């Protein structure tokens, strides 16, 4: 048994184990305490995530569990980004749910979901990948419906579940075909088949590859498969939406990176032109439809689709440069979205349950700091220079240009210009319009009266904003923090 344990190299999964352990502890604590006297389950969850984050620095890189998982610097960094984002989201969760609802469950579910991210970014076997995708998604379906009294929240949970189940079915179908084409489910057949001088893959292999990739594209909301994003993002509790914007994206992007030929390294033209088209459609359609939105969460949902389109450009770049640009982009993107959705969480319940953009009128006068924070996030999402969003887009577009794809880079730049309209309109509404008459001066979110609860979300917001600013001013320093 000891030899088996040594051979399995189980330490590579230590961060995931720590996270799962803490999730179970939270559930056990929840079993013996009432909701109203819940001893801040989020603090327990954040402690667990911090331990997992630290441990991920010390675990050895390498293959574990007989080739089922492999940890390298890319997967480790991607997982670290997800863990750090999860910690920030857990800081916001108390303001969202107050003292009377299922905070213990939410904390545990966020941890389980992050465990799924870890499985997906390290998976080397399709069964492992499928396990990860389910472990990531099932908690998200539940959390989308966490506001059980709100019909929109229930609708979001059901829609997300149905679309997710459909994507899982496609993936299983693809896995069956892949098994038929290759004889086993190890993911290295992708890399082997897309080598430059390899035997051209068979049609049956392509069928499996397309189906499995489609499941991943569903998860990250690329354009032909994006319809679920809007209702799910709108209906879910805002802090959970912040988690949804980055966690499945990180997982799906790095799972996709293992099964997709990067740039022209395969010598096949089909994957390149497919990714070209997907990326162009995703960024353009996302931005076009965001222009017409009156609801801030729907607008941010379309904006996250558009950003997914920019990030898909990383697959047009051969070598590691594209992957590194993608990691940086995802880190900044997670921070920007956490910041924006935190402000929405703190402001929205008092103003307008429907969250129209107009309801943010005069926020700069009533809540200056929150308005400034939201403005910084929106500037950064647009890609304006002093903030992280600019550097992220700069690195990515520079690498795309260096790989010779001029047209898609131009399309991305024009799309950024287009997106300035709908992001900056929100800033305009916040600063120039008078506060609505029916508006009260105070935040009547569930955090009212619980200063320590409000405090944690303010700290999370401050960290996110500082991260957005630092990544714009000193990208090297930021990259070192997230261990690029």
């Amino acid at each position, binding site marked *: *048994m000891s030899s*088996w344990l040594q051979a399995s190299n189980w330490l590579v999964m230590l961060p995931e184990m720590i996270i799962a352990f803490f999730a*179970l502890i939270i*559930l*056990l604590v*929840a*079993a013996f305490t009432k909701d109203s006297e819940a001893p801040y389950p989020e603090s327990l969850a954040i402690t667990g995530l911090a331990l997992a984050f630290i441990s991920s620095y010390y675990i050895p890189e390498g293959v574990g569990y007989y080739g089922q998982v492999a940890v390298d610097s890319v997967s480790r960094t991607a997982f670290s980004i997800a863990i750090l984002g999860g910690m920030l989201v857990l800081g916001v969760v108390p303001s969202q749910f107050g003292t009377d609802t299922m905070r213990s469950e939410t904390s545990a579910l966020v941890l389980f979901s992050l465990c799924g991210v870890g499985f997906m970014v390290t998976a080397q076997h399709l069964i492992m990948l499928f396990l990860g995708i389910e472990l990531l998604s099932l908690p998200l379906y539940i959390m989308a419906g966490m506001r059980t009294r709100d019909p929109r929240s229930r609708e979001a949970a059901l829609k997300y579940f149905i679309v997710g189940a459909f994507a899982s079915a496609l993936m299983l179908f693809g896995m069956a075909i892949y098994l038929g084409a290759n004889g086993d489910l190890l993911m290295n057949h992708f890399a082997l088949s897309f080598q430059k001088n390899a035997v051209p893959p068979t049609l049956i292999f392509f069928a499996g590859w397309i189906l499995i990739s489609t499941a991943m594209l569903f998860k990250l909301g690329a354009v032909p498969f994006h319809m679920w994003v809007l209702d799910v993002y709108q209906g879910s509790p805002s802090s959970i939406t912040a988690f949804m914007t980055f966690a499945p994206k990180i997982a799906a992007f790095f799972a996709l990176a293992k099964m997709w030929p990067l740039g022209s390294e395969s010598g096949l033209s089909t994957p390149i032109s497919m990714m070209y088209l997907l990326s162009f459609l995703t960024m353009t359609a996302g931005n076009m439809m965001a222009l017409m939105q009156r609801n801030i969460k729907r607008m941010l949902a379309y904006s996250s689709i558009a950003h997914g389109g920019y990030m898909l450009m990383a697959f047009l770049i051969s070598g590691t440069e594209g992957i590194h640009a993608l990691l940086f982009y995802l880190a900044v993107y997670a921070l920007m979205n956490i910041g924006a959705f935190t402000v929405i969480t703190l402001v929205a319940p008092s103003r307008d349950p429907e969250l129209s953009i107009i309801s943010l009128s005069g926020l700069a006068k009533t809540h200056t700091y929150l308005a400034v924070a939201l403005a910084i996030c929106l500037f950064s999402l647009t890609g304006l220079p002093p903030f992280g969003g600019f550097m992220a887009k700069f690195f990515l577009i520079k690498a795309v240009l260096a790989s010779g794809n001029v047209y898609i880079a131009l399309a991305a730049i024009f799309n950024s210009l287009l997106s300035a309209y709908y992001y900056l309109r929100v800033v305009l509404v916040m600063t120039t319009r008078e506060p609505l008459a029916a508006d009260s001066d105070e935040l009547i979110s569930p955090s009212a009266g619980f200063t320590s609860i409000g405090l944690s979300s303010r700290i999370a917001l401050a960290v996110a904003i500082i991260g957005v600013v630092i990544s714009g001013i000193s990208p090297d320093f930021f990259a070192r923090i997230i261990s690029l």
Partner: protein
Amino acid sequence: MFFINYMPVILMFAVAAGFAVANVLLSALFGPYRASAAKMEPYECGAHPVGDARKPVVTRFYRVAMLFLLFDVEVALMLPVLTVYRDYAFKWVAFTELFLFMALLVVGYVYIRGRGGLEWD
């Protein structure tokens, strides 16, 4: 010809289907037909059918049924482990894993009890 190997099976299917269809057709054609109120009732295992089947059911049943399924499926998940149990190298690993799996389920059970998932009122 590929299908020739399966000819007995196909023939069996054809005979079975033909037998069933022929009997239903013959009895419909030649059998006497005398309807009565009792005969026209839907068949429900002897129980007297009352009202619509689509009536609301207390949601507590769903919760209990769901939890029952959760702990029931666990047995199905244990069965594949038996396939590696003969392999000596994996024997103790499989044994430990099964206990770990049970421990996780116990955590779930404690959580359900603690949160009042099995209380009827």
